C-alpha cells in the first residue's frame, strides 16, 4: 500500500472530477436548467475518492441520495451523468431516474438511492453473492450519519456481521441529516460504536483528507478480502452546500461561521497543498488538470442539452424484464 505519485495524482483527479461536475450541476440547478432535487456532494470528495481508489473496478458500491460523487469517483461518465440530470434519453437511466437514481452497473455502481438507508442491505446482498460465487470481490455501502438511525441499516449491519460477509461500511458523517444536527438525533457521536454493537471493527478517519481515507480504506479492504468479515470506516466530513441545491434555506440550522471554518479544510485544498509541497506536482500542472476536466464538464453540458428527451412510448419500457430466449 505504498502511496506512489500515481496514486496521489489519481486521488486528486477523482476529487476534481466530482467537484467540477457538481459545481456545474449546482449552477445549472440555480438557473432552473435541471429538474428535480439535487443533493450536492461538494466538500465530501475525499471520501468517495479515497475509497473508490482503493477498490477494484469490479467491487460493488451502493450509494445514497447524495450519489454523484460515488459514481464519478468510481469512473462515471460525465456525459451520461449530465444527460440523466436533465432527464434526457442518453442519460445513465434513460432519463427515468434522475439525480437520485444514477447508476452504472458496468462500473459495479448499484445505484444512488432516494430512500435513506436502503442501499445498505443491497450491499449485503452483493457481498453475499460475491462470497457464494467466490469471485474475490467485496461490496461497499456508502451511507450518511443520519441513515444509521433507520432500521434498514441496523438489520443490514447485523446480517453482514452474522454471515461474516465481505463488506465495507463507509459512513459519511457530515454531522447533519437534512437540517437536523447529529447530536439531536443520536446519543452517540461516533457511528463506529454501532459497528462495535454488531460485533465488527470500526475506525474513524479524517474524511477531509483523501490520503487518510485511501490508506484506511485500503487497510480495511485487504482484511475484508482475506475473509475477516465486515468493517466500518467512519469518515468525518462536511457538506459545503445545502441539503438540497446550493444556497442556504430559511432555518439557520448551521452557522455561516461553521461552514467557513470547514471550508478551510476543503479536501481539494488540503491535497493540492500536499502535492505542491512534496514536489509531486506544480501549481501549474494542477491547474492544467482542472482545465482539462472542466472542458469535459462543459462538453457534457453541451452533450446533455443536445440530447433528445425520451420518447413517450418509452415510459412503459423496463417495468419488467423479458425472459430471454434460451
Amino acid at each position, binding site marked *: 500500500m505504498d502511496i506512489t505519485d500515481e496514486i496521489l495524482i489519481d486521488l486528486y483527479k477523482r476529487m476534481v472530477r466530482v467537484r467540477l461536475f457538481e459545481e456545474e450541476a449546482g449552477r445549472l440547478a440555480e438557473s432552473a436548467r435541471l429538474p428535480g432535487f439535487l443533493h450536492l456532494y461538494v466538500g465530501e470528495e475525499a471520501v468517495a475518492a479515497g475509497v473508490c481508489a482503493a477498490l477494484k473496478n469490479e467491487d460493488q458500491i451502493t450509494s445514497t441520495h447524495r450519489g454523484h460523487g460515488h459514481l464519478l469517483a468510481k469512473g462515471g461518465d460525465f456525459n451520461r451523468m449530465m444527460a440523466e440530470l436533465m432527464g434526457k434519453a442518453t442519460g445513465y437511466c434513460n*432519463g427515468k431516474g*434522475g439525480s437520485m437514481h444514477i447508476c452504472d452497473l458496468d462500473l459495479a455502481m448499484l445505484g444512488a438511492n*432516494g430512500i435513506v438507508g436502503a442501499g445498505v442491505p443491497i450491499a449485503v446482498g452483493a457481498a453475499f453473492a460475491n462470497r457464494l460465487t467466490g469471485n474475490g470481490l467485496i461490496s461497499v455501502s456508502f451511507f450518511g450519519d*443520519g441513515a444509521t438511525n*433507520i432500521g434498514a441499516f441496523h438489520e443490514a449491519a447485523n446480517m453482514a456481521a452474522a454471515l461474516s460477509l465481505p463488506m465495507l461500511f463507509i459512513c459519511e458523517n457530515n454531522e447533519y441529516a437534512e437540517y437536523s444536527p447529529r447530536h439531536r438525533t443520536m446519543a452517540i457521536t461516533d457511528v463506529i460504536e454501532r459497528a462495535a454493537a454488531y460485533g465488527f471493527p470500526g475506525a474513524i478517519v479524517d474524511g477531509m483528507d483523501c490520503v487518510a481515507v485511501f490508506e484506511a480504506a485500503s487497510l480495511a479492504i485487504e482484511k475484508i478480502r482475506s475473509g475477516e468479515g465486515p468493517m466500518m470506516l467512519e469518515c468525518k466530513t462536511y457538506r459545503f452546500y445545502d441539503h438540497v441545491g446550493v444556497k442556504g434555506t430559511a432555518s439557520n440550522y448551521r452557522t455561516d461561521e461553521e461552514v467557513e471554518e470547514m471550508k478551510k479544510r476543503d479536501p481539494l485544498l488540503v491535497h493540492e497543498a500536499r502535492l505542491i509541497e512534496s514536489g509531486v506536482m506544480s501549481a501549474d500542472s494542477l491547474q492544467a488538470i482542472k482545465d482539462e476536466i472542466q472542458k469535459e464538464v462543459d462538453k457534457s453540458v453541451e452533450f446533455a442539452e443536445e440530447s433528445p428527451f425520451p420518447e*413517450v412510448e418509452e415510459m*412503459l419500457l423496463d417495468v419488467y424484464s423479458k425472459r430471454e430466449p434460451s
Partner: protein
Amino acid sequence: MSPDNIFEGANESGGTEEKDGERKLGYGAAVVETMAQIMREDESVFIAGEDVGAHGGVFGYYRGLQPEFGEDRVVDTPIAEQAIIGLGIGAAVQGLRPVVDLMFMDFICVAMDQIVNQAAKLKYMFGGGAKLPLTITTAGGGGLSAAAQHSQSLEAMLCHVPGLKVVMPSDAYEVKGLLTACIREDNPTVFIINKRKLGDACHVPEELFEIPLGKGHIVREGSDATVVAIGRMVEEATKAAETLSDEGIDCELINPRTVQPLDIDLIVESVSKTGHLVIVHEAVRFGGIGAEIAAQIQEKAFDYLDAPIERVAAPFSPVPFSPVLEKKYIPDAERISAGIKNLF
C-alpha cells in the same frame, strides 16, 4: 421550479390574504394554521417527525409550531419511519392525540408494519379495548421531477387495510376541515397532502371547523356525466368540466374528500342521474381507487349506466423522472376531457 422552491413552496403561499372581503389561505399554510389552533385548544395533541420542529418541515408546513409549542410538543425525530409511527401508536394508546409526519408518502413503505399490522389492527385485535386517535400526515403525488421514490400516490394500498381511514384534501379549505376531523377522530387516519398544491390559496374560515370523514362533496352539478376526481385531480377535472361545458357536455364533479371510508352513496345518486361515470386519480390505474368505485357502481347502479365506466389514471409504471415523461404520466385536464368524451 428549482428544488429550493419546492421545499419553500408552502412558505411562499404561507400568508393569509384578504381579497374581495374573503380571507384566502394557502394549502400549506392551512396545515400550520390548523395544527396551531388545535394544539392551542387540546394539550394532548403533539406532532413528531423528521425536521418538523426547528426547520418547520421540509415543505415548510409546520413552520412556526415549535417556537409556539416548544420542543416537547413539536418533536424532531431521527430518520426512523417505523419508530415514528410506533411513537404515535404508543402515545395514542396512552390517551394522547399524536400527529406523526412521514414527509414523503413513499416513506410509508418503510413503516408499513407499524401502519398496517399495528395501527390499523390494534383496536380490533384487542377486542375493542384500545383507542387510536392517531393522524399520519404525509406528502404524496408527483409533478416535481422527484422521480420514482418521491412521487407516488399509494392511497389504494392503505384503503385496502381495514382499520385505517384515508383522507385526501384537494384544497386549503379541505385541509383545514379534514385535518381537524382527522385529529379529533378516534381512529388512525392517513392525511395525504399533495405537494403540488402547497402554493394554492382559497377561502378558508378563520375558526376551526370539521369536514366529516366519509362524506363526499359535489364540486359542480351537471346532468350528462359524473366525474369522480381525487385529491389534486379535482382541480384538473374542474378545468376539464369547464372546457366540456362549452362543448355541450354538462359534467357533475364529485370530490370524495376521503377515500376510506368512501361516500359511495353520493356517487350512486349522481350516476343514477347522469348515466355516465369517469373516475380520475393520480395513482396507477391497476388496482387504484377507481377500480373499487367502478366495482361498487356496477353492483349498486348497473341499471343506470349508459356506457362502460371510464378511468383516467397513471399508466402501470413507476413515476418517471424526465419532465417530458412525467407530464404524460400524470393525468391532466386534457386527458380527463378525452376520457369523458369517450363515454359518448
